[in-house]
């Protein structure tokens, strides 16, 4: 059967995890020459409609992106037990669904620690997109990382807004960043989709550091992007496509954290000069401790609080 993917309403170029999935799709197509059927719904109703239609036409596996699709996937997966679904960022307990979720808090912890180490002012910032639990999860992990590295550091947190536009408002992003800089922050982490573009630009303009999110965004502003918290949704998609024909695709819950390389921090030529050996060493140490469980990173979504 042919593989397919259904993005969520932000679209495959959301500068965020949809785009990550899209990268995985591209990689698979480049390697195998097999086209992946893509669908971008524009509202809730189209999600189920599109899924149903793909399933009916025999596409499998179908990768679905984002927690918003949970209920639609659940319904369609029940009706089409022979089709394999991979749901990214959501959980469904069905024999033909693989649920992939990420430990964003662990990755955020790492970049938080990095931010604290790079900061000269001991003040760092976090800028979230829309104020929803998932975004708070990033912020909470980040804060823990910062405090771990510099216990008396200040973490400034801002959310962009309350509508979907909050993931697409670079102007507001840049103003939020400037406001944080004026309060002394010298590193900001943006978990805000397209809004981040404005944050990175503001950092560049003021000579401060910014941290990217989801995919490796270091190239966007070389020299001022300290790193990016990457979430390997591309791998999740890629693996599904790779494994399904081979028969190694498994339903069930897949949780990807630091240990599984599901989340990580990005190093490349664009930020090589910004990361000292010392930082590298201590991050490696923290990373190991998280994997070993010596450091417990609190997950905001486990109890909707950031008490760690």
């Amino acid at each position: 059967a042919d593989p397919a993917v259904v993005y969520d309403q932000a679209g495959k170029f959301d500068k965020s995890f949809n785009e990550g999935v899209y990268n995985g799709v591209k990689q698979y197509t480049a390697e195998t020459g097999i086209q992946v059927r893509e669908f971008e719904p524009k509202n809730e109703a189209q999600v189920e409609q599109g899924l149903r239609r793909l399933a009916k036409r025999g596409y499998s596996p179908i990768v679905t992106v984002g927690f918003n699709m949970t209920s639609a996937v659940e319904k369609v997966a029940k009706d089409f037990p022979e089709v394999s679904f991979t749901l990214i960022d959501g959980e469904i307990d069905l024999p033909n669904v693989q649920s992939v979720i990420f430990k964003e808090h662990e990755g955020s912890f790492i970049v938080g620690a990095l931010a604290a180490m790079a900061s000269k002012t001991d003040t760092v910032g976090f800028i979230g997109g829309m104020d929803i639990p998932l975004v708070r999860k990033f912020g909470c992990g980040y804060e823990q990382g910062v405090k771990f590295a510099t216990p008396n550091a200040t973490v400034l947190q801002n959310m962009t807004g309350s509508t979907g536009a909050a993931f697409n408002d670079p102007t507001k992003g840049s103003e939020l960043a400037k406001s944080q800089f004026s309060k002394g922050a010298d590193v900001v982490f943006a978990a805000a989709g397209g809004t981040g573009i404005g944050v990175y630009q503001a950092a560049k303009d003021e000579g401060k550091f910014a941290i990217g999110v989801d995919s490796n965004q270091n190239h966007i502003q070389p020299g001022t992007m300290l790193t990016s918290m990457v979430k390997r949704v591309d791998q999740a998609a890629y693996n599904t496509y790779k494994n399904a024909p081979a028969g190694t695709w498994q339903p069930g819950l897949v949780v990807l954290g630091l240990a599984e390389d599901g989340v990580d921090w990005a190093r490349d030529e664009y930020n090589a000069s910004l990361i000292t050996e010392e930082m590298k060493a201590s991050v490696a140490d923290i990373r190991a401790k998280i994997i070993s469980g010596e450091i417990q990173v609190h997950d905001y979504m486990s109890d909707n609080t950031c008490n760690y």
Partner: protein
Amino acid sequence: MSQAKVPAWVNMALIPMLNILLAFLVSGLLILAIGENPVEAAGYLIYGAFGYDEGVGYTLYYATNLIFTGLAVSVAFKGGLFNIGGEGQAYIGGLGVGLICLSLDHTMPFYVIAPLAIIGAAVFGAAWAYIPAYLQARRGSHIVITTIMFNFIASSLMVYLIVNWLKEDGRMAPNSRTFEENAWLPYLHEILSPLGIEIGDSPLNLAFIWALLCCVFVWGLVWHTRWGYQLRTLGTNPTAARYAGIDTAKVTIWAMLISGGLAGFVGLNEIMGVNHSLLLNFTAGYGFAGIAVALMGRNHPIGIILAAMLFGALYQGGAELAFEIPTITPEIVVVIQGLVILFSGALEHMFKDRIEGFFIRRAVA
């Protein structure tokens, strides 16, 4: 000086058809420009919207939302009020529906929940329209600004409530828990199937019937009651309204309350009919589209149904088109919708004068 008349079919059918044709022609050029076949695209669009049961179901499902918001805009408009706040009123209306369902679905049967949900949608939507209405009527604050502001405020309020209070624990998505099935509006395919009528599975639900009832209600209210008479007087000539002893402030406020209530019914369709849980952004721009629907439908229920169907068809046919031809992105479909609004809405007179002139000259000669 006899009044020569233009045949009715010219105004009702010929001119609208020409306008839509022109919109499609320009869209065709766009599709050609990106290297696809416009005829094939048009085929998918029409087939997707009307070609099979399920497609028709989706078209009508979208139309349901647009009928509600179109009626909402038109009732206010009939009173000379421009309600841009349909989006926010729909959002809050959905909150009303959601709260009723969440609080009663464990204890009450459907036939108790449904009427309460209808009331909840209307009351919450109306409440959200009340403040702008009051400010307009008593303080002269411009209703266009206040309703725009209230859209923003509604968004923030809903995020705050859902994320902090109503979200189900342990769920990724910021949604409330799913309602029990006795708080779901039945789908039309479920209702019709025992009657031996099979229509494809689609989100089309009982709210559609309610939308049609609302059309009848609005038609009767606006054109056949004394309140409607007062409303229309106020909308066309406020000085005459005062002369006639009409309490203009009261009519203004009631017009907005009814408008807001109608917009609130979007929540019925979306929350109780389709999503079965309270979630963010379910209004998806239907409130704004309602403005175009109302104006293209000449603020008349029949016109609104037709315009809502046209837009519903574009949503659904557009989705089909984007699905079948992946290079035609959803954004291109948005452009096509814009072109339809432009040519059959804003440029509706482009052919009209010439064609009517032609028929009048023929009639006179």
